[in-house]
């Protein structure tokens, strides 16, 4: 049943440097990287050795615990380095791109005739499977499991996030193919959240439950959507996908090729010309930065949005799941009596001589300073104001900290992933690392209960 979901609790963080709605083609990157850290909990097993030639879409490694799950190269070229860390753990794969790209082609899949098993096999072989994430635990979905439903949020509310309606316009054909294919993987439904009154690429598509969503961040997080429509219970599985990843899946169904090309937002106050670029998964971020320019020396490059992304460098590479790169100033400076003077240039969820409540639409230039030190939990009631789920955030965080499995289950840890706690982390007066706490809690729960 389609619903109209209105989120009241939350906080919109308006930052300087929203990407302008123009797209250029990024300079082709010489080296493409696959960060293994993008796939949480995965144990990779290499298929190729250093120095091997590889085609675009050709498998490089697979999931040791599920060998059919292949991970493919975004481009054709030479696998020049397998970067390893402690205990030979694979961290990073570097592929030197050919000038002339060649791609591995599978026969396209006729979705209307394909069975559930065909689709699973196709996604696994083509390298598209890792785009499907699973809740609980925020990991790549297990191919033998059957989810009770699949959720997609096409409403971007995170600060500086790419506008999905812009980046995916014209890709309706691929999205429809992906929906048709994914629909066969679950006896339940596919739920898509669309921004209310927005011109969404999903507007004309069929085969899913359409939900209109409005309200401040985190209204656009898929976790919020799940919690309002069909919350997860113990033992259940829900799969989630990002719309931009569905385009790649849809294209693979239609053409048989893994095409890692996507439109990425380059945003943030340190970028001279924030705008969109067409580039590929794993491309060097510097190719975007050189084109747009940066306006200061001391900045941080973030793979993803400022609340959930991972720290990167100008010579870092676009992550597997990301559709945006944010560049904001580093805040590694002291502030004289910063704790007591009135604050006009930072966002605050209180009114304690902080004045962002007076200008809710003002755009701020926030840096990476923590604005205070780490403390024990003291203040109560602030998280609830930005946390729209039917969950007690403080109590759940504490349960994760003291590792009480019963409480973690009962307070709803199955329903959340770290990004759901990105806003409570932002407003936290004690500067506690909420996302890390939840991540560790999920890992512990998975290890103990599975």
């Amino acid at each position, binding site marked *: 049943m389609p619903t109209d979901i209105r989120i009241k609790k939350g906080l919109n963080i308006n930052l300087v440097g929203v990407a302008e709605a123009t797209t250029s083609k990024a300079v082709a990157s010489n080296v493409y990287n696959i960060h293994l850290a993008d796939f949480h909990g995965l144990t990779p097993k290499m298929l190729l050795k250093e120095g091997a030639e590889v085609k675009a879409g050709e498998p490089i490694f697979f999931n040791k615990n599920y060998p059919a799950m292949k991970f493919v190269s975004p481009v054709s070229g030479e696998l020049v380095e397998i970067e390893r860390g402690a205990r030979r753990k694979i961290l990073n794969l570097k592929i030197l791109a050919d000038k002339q790209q060649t791609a591995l082609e599978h026969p396209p899949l006729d979705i209307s005739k394909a069975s559930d098993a065909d689709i699973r096999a196709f996604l696994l072989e083509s390298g598209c499977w890792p785009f499907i994430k699973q809740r609980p635990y925020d990991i790549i979905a297990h191919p033998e499991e059957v989810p009770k439903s699949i959720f997609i949020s096409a409403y971007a509310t995170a600060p500086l996030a790419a506008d999905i309606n812009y980046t995916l316009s014209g890709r309706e054909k691929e999205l429809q193919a992906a929906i048709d294919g994914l629909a066969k993987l679950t006896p339940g439904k596919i739920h898509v959240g669309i921004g209310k009154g927005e011109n969404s690429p999903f507007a004309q598509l069929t085969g899913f439950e359409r939900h209109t969503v409005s309200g401040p961040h985190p209204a656009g997080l898929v976790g919020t959507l799940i919690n309002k429509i069909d919350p997860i219970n113990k033992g259940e599985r829900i799969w989630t996908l990002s719309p931009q990843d569905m385009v790649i899946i849809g294209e693979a169904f239609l053409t048989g090729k893994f095409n890692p090309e996507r439109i990425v937002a380059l945003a943030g106050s340190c970028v001279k010309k924030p705008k969109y670029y067409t580039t590929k998964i794993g491309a060097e971020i510097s190719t975007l930065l050189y084109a747009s320019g940066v306006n200061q020396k001391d900045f941080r490059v973030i793979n993803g949005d400022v609340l959930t992304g991972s720290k990167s460098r100008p010579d870092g590479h676009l992550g597997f799941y990301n559709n945006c790169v944010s560049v904001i100033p580093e805040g590694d400076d002291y502030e004289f009596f910063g704790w007591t003077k009135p604050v006009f240039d930072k966002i605050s969820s209180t009114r304690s001589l902080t004045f962002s409540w007076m200008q809710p639409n003002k755009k701020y230039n926030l840096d990476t300073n923590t604005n205070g030190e780490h403390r024990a939990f*003291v203040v109560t009631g602030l998280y609830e104001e930005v946390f729209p789920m039917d969950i007690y955030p403080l109590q759940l965080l504490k349960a994760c900290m003291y590792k009480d499995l019963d409480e973690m289950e009962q307070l709803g840890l199955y329903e959340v992933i770290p990004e759901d706690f990105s806003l409570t982390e932002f407003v936290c007066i004690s500067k506690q690392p909420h996302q890390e706490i939840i991540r560790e809690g999920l890992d512990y729960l998975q290890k103990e209960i599975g």
Partner: protein
Amino acid sequence: MSDKRLTIKKRLHIIKHRLRGNKMAPAFSALHTFLFTPDETTHSGGHIRSADDLKRTMNMVILALIPVLLFSFFNTGYQHYAAIDAASGAPRVLSLMDNFLTWENFWLGFTLVMPLVIISYAIGLGVEFIFAIIKGHEVEEGYLVTGMLVPLIIPVDTPLWMLAVAVVFGVVIGKEVFGGTGMNILNPALTIRAFLFFAYPTWMSGDKVWVHGAVERTGTPDAISGETILGSLAQNNAYDYSVSDMFFGFIPGSVGETSAFLILLGGLFLIFSKIASWRIMVSAVIGSLVMGLIFNGIVDMGWIGANSSFYSLMNFEFWKHLIVGGLAFGIVYMATDPVTGSQTQKGKWIYGFLIGFLSVMIRVFNPAYPEGVFLAILLMNVFAPTIDHYVVRGNVKRRLNRLKTATIYPRTTDGKAEELKAETV
């Protein structure tokens, strides 16, 4: 000027790095972060953080206490001189400009109250620093508020050594043994107050302690009286203060508790700045009014005679409980302590209501000491986790009910999913 500040900043930065790993690092860090918010950047999770930190939060409470403190200077002086006048047979008539806001009052109050403030901070922060150095953690900000609250909730003539002993007890037993700020079960300021009350009852109660000078003159012909309104009522005596005196605070009592007006302003400021919970304040006011009404009702029904020792307090108009004694101060500044209070929004309603309700009840039924706020809050501190437990249970129950209709599918190996019937866990 900015050059000089830069060098200070750089010098402190160098010292900080030199002291890294040193035992004294927390002590230096406490002073350093007082001057400068640190250069720390985000290293996990989100990359940006809001402007608020614990220092700012605590600072807001202190700002809300400043008017109360300033008023207490004047009132301490005024009550002293008024009592002398009364003892000499020429009672004063209050006049705000002529005999209240005078230099003489201010100076007397200042010289009496400031030592309490200084001792409270010096001893309390000293203990905090020692614990931070021993345990190697940062000096946390909790005591900034506690240190200001303590002098405001004790009688003005409390000997400084008694205060010092009580502060050490309160900070060590009330807070540090539990792990410091954020971990304590009882409100540290009230623990200090309770220690004073139970360790030195003769000093902390009775009719002689509330006005400066009343104690040492006992027994002499010109003994001055220092009775609070509640004290008079407890002995079924009449009191001689108007409602406006009580509301604005021109009455004897603990140092900072008298002015309901300024406390109200402080409370509104804390609610507006979202630092303190309005739920606790509103429900505590409701709770005290309800209990007051019940007592008034008992008197009206004639269930209790005028000769009962509780008669005057029970007959006291229900709403006046809010403007005499420490009730208003306790509700605004002590009950709203987020660490020791209820932590869930629903729980805060119950917690606050019971504080107001019990405060008035204890106040009326306690023959030794007609005041109940600090006991009521301490009692509810102990019960706050229980209240939260039952509130959170409601959420857990919903989740467990939902579990009965969970849709769990078996794994598919041949690619065909068969629906498993709803599984009860």
